[in-house]
């Protein structure tokens, strides 16, 4: 597509064409995403092992988490994935303004997600529900979990999985902020939008992780 024209300023000398450069970057991103899947799989395996050992504990404790907050956060993250997909759709059609608007909407949705996560965490911390050794629940909603065996393991798994997921959301917000700035300066076009595409892939993977976390922790 671009080989016949003069070289694009973003084309690096070791690539034949923008297309080849794009494909190579995307391939590298998929390899990185697989390492991300493997990172989270360690935690999913830990969850599965504890659940197989103590199914009744995990079933009982899923009610300790508010499915309404988790559900709203699921919808918010799905919406953010939708806006990311739209932003790529628009930049492929050279609509820079629509791309930036959708990226900003994505950052907004991610912010809502992190705010709800903050409410959930602070609600637990204020009732002594901490990960690991500090676990000492008290009060109305959490007090009766103090003597439930393996409840600390459930909450530790909850905090570590949602915590590392939350860090990924924060990193995504940062990268999207950079993309929104660069996009508003006109850096991206249908010829060159690799950073938007790759960050989009990352964001969709973070969404998929949450798609599994939500039922496993909040529902069943």
């Amino acid at each position: 597509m671009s080989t016949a024209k003069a070289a694009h300023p973003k084309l690096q000398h070791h690539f034949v064409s923008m297309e080849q450069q794009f494909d190579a970057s995307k391939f590298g991103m998929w390899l990185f995403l697989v390492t991300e899947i493997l990172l989270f799989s360690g935690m999913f395996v830990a969850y599965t092992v504890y659940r197989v050992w103590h199914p009744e504990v995990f079933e009982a404790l899923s009610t300790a988490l508010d499915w309404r907050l988790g559900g709203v956060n699921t919808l918010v993250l799905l919406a953010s994935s939708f806006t990311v997909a739209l932003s790529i759709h628009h930049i492929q059609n050279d609509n820079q303004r629509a791309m930036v608007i959708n990226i900003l909407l994505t950052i907004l949705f991610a912010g809502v997600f992190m705010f709800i996560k903050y409410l959930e965490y602070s609600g637990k911390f204020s009732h002594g529900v901490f990960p690991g050794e500090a676990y000492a629940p008290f009060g109305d909603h959490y007090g009766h979990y103090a003597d439930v065996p393996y409840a600390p393991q459930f909450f530790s798994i909850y905090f570590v999985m949602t915590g590392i997921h939350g860090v990924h959301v924060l990193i995504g917000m940062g990268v999207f902020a950079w993309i929104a700035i660069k996009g508003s300066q006109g850096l991206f076009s249908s010829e060159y939008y690799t950073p938007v595409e790759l960050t989009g892939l990352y964001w969709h993977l973070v969404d998929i992780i949450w798609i599994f976390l939500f039922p496993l922790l909040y529902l069943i």
Partner: protein
Amino acid sequence: MAHAEHAHHITPFRTLLGVFLGLVFLTILTVTTSRLDLGVLDVPVALAIALGKAALVVVFFMALKWDNRVNGVVLALGVLFVSIFLVFTLFDTAFRGDTSNVDEVTIKDAEAELAAPAGDADHGESAPAADH
């Protein structure tokens, strides 16, 4: 690189919107089914819906449907190794205590005998000691 010259696939707006609405529907569905008591089906149903949602995101939002085949192979290999990780860990943890036991009764049977009234305790005690 046979198609190096072709233009990128642009996913139509209607497709993206349809996928998003499908994901919202499946989210409502998984919440609804989890609030019914499906017994042993609770976990499989929730996981099946989550897998369906993940597939929608991968195929349409991540556009793997129209992407170079090699990226799909990378993802499939990742999923394969996660499966190996999970299944082989469970081979250990889900059957721990029984696999290396060469006694006539399994550890679980021996534990049940230990828990039973003291009259029959002789046989039961030897079994756990023989293991590990």
